């Protein structure tokens, strides 16, 4: 029997290994296909790895298990991180990743739940995942189900008004089993969020809507594990995960051009050297 401490340590080392593999594999996919959104993949990798390998209850052999915890990837363009996570979690063979965005592939440029097991919603247009997650949480509340619902949005995505419709309803209904995670890398596709349409003070906005707000280092696995595992006191939870776009590759970090930039062969080799397992 492992102690709690040992359990956490083993979780953290597994998460570290999975996150490292996901980053390398996503980069390979984007380099091979010469398409994708690597900057946002890398900023969200640690969040998604902690969810799948430390927090969520699911059974990859039974993707429709009614009591599974739900994860809705609202920033649907970050397929590099979602597809690698689902493969690592065992939803489908890792070889499927080789078909990323190939003609007719199940690995569409944006996720489709009817093509791939483990995908909860067909996202891509921004501001869609949060209302869907809200509906999932309301269904759980009506059924008295134990599952929790997590949704990840980008930070630029918070400019979509539909998020605030969902925030208002969730706050009003005090949905304690709903957790919103915001990938706060402070860059949208062309510029800094605060130079485009500023979001700050983002936490205060969610507090005003009746949410419990926690800010964490979105690359600190232990901190993410704590924040994402915590149980609410009776309101929905918003985790603002402060991240770095392009995290892990020095020349991509915090640069808007890597929102959907594609590395050339030389840049790919340099990046893979930095992303050692």
């Amino acid at each position: 029997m492992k102690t709690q401490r040992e359990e956490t340590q083993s979780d953290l080392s597994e998460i570290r290994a999975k996150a490292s593999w996901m980053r390398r594999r996503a980069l390979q996919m984007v380099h091979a296909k010469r398409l994708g959104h690597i900057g946002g993949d890398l900023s969200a990798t640690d969040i998604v790895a902690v969810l799948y390998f430390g927090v969520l209850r699911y059974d990859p052999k039974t993707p429709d298990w009614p009591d599974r915890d739900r994860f809705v990837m609202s920033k649907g363009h970050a397929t590099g991180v979602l597809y690698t996570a689902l493969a690592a979690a065992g939803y489908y063979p890792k070889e499927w990743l080789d078909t990323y965005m190939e003609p007719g592939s199940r690995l569409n440029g944006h996720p489709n739940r009817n093509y791939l097991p483990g995908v909860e919603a067909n996202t891509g247009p921004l501001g869609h995942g949060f209302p869907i997650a809200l509906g999932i949480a309301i269904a759980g509340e009506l059924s008295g189900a134990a599952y929790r619902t997590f949704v990840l949005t980008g930070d630029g995505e918070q400019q979509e008004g539909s998020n605030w419709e969902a925030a208002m309803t969730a706050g009003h209904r005090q949905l304690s089993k709903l957790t919103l995670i915001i990938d706060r890398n402070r860059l949208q596709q062309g510029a800094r969020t605060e130079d485009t349409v500023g979001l700050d003070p983002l936490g205060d906005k969610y507090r005003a809507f009746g949410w419990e707000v926690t800010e964490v280092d979105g690359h600190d696995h232990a901190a993410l594990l704590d924040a994402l595992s915590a149980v609410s006191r009776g309101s929905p939870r918003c985790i603002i995960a402060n991240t770095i776009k392009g995290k892990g590759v020095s020349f991509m970090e915090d640069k808007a051009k890597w929102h959907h930039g594609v590395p050339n062969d030389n840049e790919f080799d340099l990046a893979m050297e930095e992303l050692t397992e």
Partner: protein
Amino acid sequence: MTALEKQAGMFDCRKAWASTLEALASDDERIVAVVNDSVGSSNLGGFREAFADRLVNVGIAEQNMVGVGAGLANGGKIPFVSAASCFLSGRALEQIKADVAYSEYNVKLVGQSSGVAYGELGATHHSIEDFAWLRALGTLTVVAPADPWETEMAVRWAAGHTGPVYLRLSRMKVPDLGPDASGQRDFTPGRMRLMRAGSDVTILASGTMVHVALMAADVLAAEAVSARVYSAHTLNPLDETAILEAGAETGAIVTCEEALVSGGLGGAVAELTSANRPVPVERIGFQGFQTTGSVAWLFEENGMTPDGIAEAARRAVSRKA
């Protein structure tokens, strides 16, 4: 006396919608209603009293409303998302496309007071574009029932069917159309109901226009023109076989709908016939944004009357090769 004149026998189909939903909900706890503060306009006061928890009011927030519907379906519920069709279909169109139709979630969208039911409120509140917008979303079944019985059947069918559905309802009073031309009552989405047999021209009507089309057939019968009339309640999937057969057998078609003819039933029938078996098609409905006015006045202005439809039928017949 025409059906339209029998005011005592006219029905607001929202009653059939609401009572059917309540009956279904009492047998199946998965059924929930989702509204944008549209409890009254959706006639869901009784549902709220009976099933308070299962009436999810997201406030005046249509994008959220449709996304919540998709999420409820993910969580195993059968959501009926009900709102004025102008706001449901227009404001939340991308959610209907991505979250419901493309995701193929088991969501039932219910557009209330469709067409020009809010006549005087003007084009912002008219819902005449919804057929064109929503028929383009291939996985979404689009049904516009014509009377209280079709409404009840459509709601029952939608609840039992797994897949996305748009029910286009009206609050405008219509008569109970009774059995079809063969004396039967059968409602199968995707299969038009033959309401009157005829051999000179076919009138395909949708929703509130079906009883008007039947009156037009009376006008034509007085001139010895034999009109075949269908309740074309399902716009997607279209009953292609029956439409092409009717076109071939009668040689002329008139479409009637409380919607834009471009992209609506008229557009669909023109596409189908021109690509397969061309016949003259005359299309009754709206051509563009409408000004303020009563429903009766808007119908009169656009030829959506027994005489207007009869005139369109005469034109179609005169165009036969």
